[in-house]
C-alpha cells in the first residue's frame, strides 16, 4: 500500500515544470532527478557552485573536484556554469532557485521544517545549506516517509525537533499522500489506493483536511 520511495520521486518529478531551476537536497531527494522525463529541460543547481549539473560520470571518468552537495561525482551539461560559493548561495537565498526538494524529520501544519538536527548528543550538529535553501527557494517541496521507521508521525502540529525554518514548506510528498500546506494546515490532495481517510489521519499527528477531489496517488 505504501509507495516505494522511487514512486514518490516519480510523483515529485511530475510536478517539476519544464525549464525549472531546481536544487535537490542530499539523500532521498536526489532520486527525483532520475525520474524527470527527457521531455523536460530542468537545470540542476548545486550549492558548491554548479548550474546545469548532469548525472554521475561513467566509472573512471570521475573528476574529484566536480562533486554535488552530497560530495558524489557529477558531470556538467552543455550550458552549465561554475561560480563561487557566495554566488551559489545568493541564488538559493535570493529566490532564484525555483524549487527545492528536501528531506524532513518533521513538518508542521504551519509549514515549519525540521530536517537538520535530532539532538543526538553523540554527534556534533551539522546544518550545511539546509536553512538557506528552506528559506530562499521559491517553492519548498518535502519528500519523506509518512512516518518514521518506528511508526511515529512526521507530519505534526508543531515540530519537536529543532527547526530548519519556519513556515516555508509548500507541499509534502510521502509514501502515503501528497499534502499541501495551507493557512488551515495540511490539505490532502492525493492518497494511495486502499487507504481510508481515517487510516491516513491515524498515521498523522496534525489534523488533516481533504480536498474535494482527492486523487489516487499511485506508482507510475
Amino acid at each position, binding site marked *: 500500500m505504501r509507495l516505494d520511495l522511487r514512486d514518490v520521486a516519480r510523483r515529485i518529478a511530475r510536478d517539476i515544470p519544464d525549464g525549472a531551476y531546481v536544487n535537490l537536497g542530499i539523500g532521498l531527494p536526489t532520486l527525483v532527478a532520475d525520474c524527470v522525463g527527457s521531455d523536460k529541460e530542468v537545470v540542476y543547481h548545486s550549492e*558548491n557552485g554548479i548550474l546545469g549539473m548532469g548525472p554521475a560520470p561513467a566509472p573512471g571518468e570521475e573528476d574529484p*573536484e566536480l562533486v554535488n552537495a552530497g560530495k558524489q561525482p557529477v558531470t556538467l551539461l552543455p550550458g552549465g556554469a561554475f561560480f563561487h*560559493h557566495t554566488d551559489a*548561495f545568493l541564488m538559493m537565498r535570493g529566490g532564484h532557485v525555483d524549487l527545492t526538494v528536501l528531506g524532513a524529520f518533521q513538518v508542521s501544519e504551519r509549514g515549519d521544517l525540521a530536517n537538520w538536527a535530532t539532538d543526538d548528543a553523540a554527534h*556534533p550538529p551539522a546544518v550545511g545549506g*539546509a536553512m538557506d535553501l528552506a528559506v*530562499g527557494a521559491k517553492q519548498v517541496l518535502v519528500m519523506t516517509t509518512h512516518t518514521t521507521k518506528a511508526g511515529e508521525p512526521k507530519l505534526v502540529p508543531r515540530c519537536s525537533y529543532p527547526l530548519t525554518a519556519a513556515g516555508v514548506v509548500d507541499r509534502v510528498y510521502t509514501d502515503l499522500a501528497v499534502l499541501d500546506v495551507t493557512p488551515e494546515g495540511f490539505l490532502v490532495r492525493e492518497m494511495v489506493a486502499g487507504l481510508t481517510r481515517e487510516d491516513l489521519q491515524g498515521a498523522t499527528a496534525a489534523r488533516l483536511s481533504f480536498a474535494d477531489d482527492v486523487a489516487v496517488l499511485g506508482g507510475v
Partner: protein
Amino acid sequence: MIDKRVGSPADAVEGIEDGATVLVGGFGASGVPVELVHALLDRGATDLTVVTNNAGSGETDVAALLRERRVRKIVCSYPRSAGSVWFEERWRAGEVELELVPQGTLSERMRAAAAGLGGFFTPTGADTRLAEGKEVRVIDGRRHVFEEPLPGDVALVKAARADRWGNLVYRTAARNFGPTMAAAAALTVVQVEEFVELGELDPEAIVTPGIFVDRVVRVAAA
C-alpha cells in the same frame, strides 16, 4: 615589479602566527588546499580558529590540524561526515569549540568582511537555535537575523593557475569558497597547479584578481 610567487608551501605560510583565524577553502575534498594546510601544520602554528565548510576527514588537512590539537575553534556549516573522526573526537572531549553557521551565512559573512560591511540582516536562521542570542529585526514582514562580518587573518586557497600578479582561475567546482576567502583575509596564500605568464589568463575570465592575493605557490597536481 610584482611577483607573488614563492618557492615552497613552507615559504607560503611564513609568518602565520599562533592564534590566527585561518580561512581554509574546500567543500568536502573538492578544492582543499591540502599542501598549504600541511605546511601550516609543519610550521607548528597552534591555537588556531579555522573557518572552513567541513571539519576535515581522515588524517589529512584540517583533520590533521585537529589530531595535532592545533585548533581552538572551528567555524563551519557541516563538521559531520564520513571520516570526520578527529573532529568528532576533539569535539566530544570538549577540546575544540564549534561555531555552527548556515553555509550561505558563512559565505556571506566572509563576503561582508571582504566588502567592508559592518554586517547584514538575513532571514536564514531566523526562529532556529542557530539564531539564539542574535539580534532579530522584522523587515518587510519577515524575521531577519543580524550577522556579523567574518574576516580571516589568513586564507588558504587552492586554484588551478596563477600569474605573477596573483590573478587566479580555478578548476570546475573546486572554485567553491576560494574567491570569497581570498578577498576576506588580511594575508591570502594560494596553491596552484600551474604558473602562467602575465597576460596569458583571459582578462574576461580571471575569477580572482591579484589584488586579493599575496602569495602563490605551485604544487604538482595529485
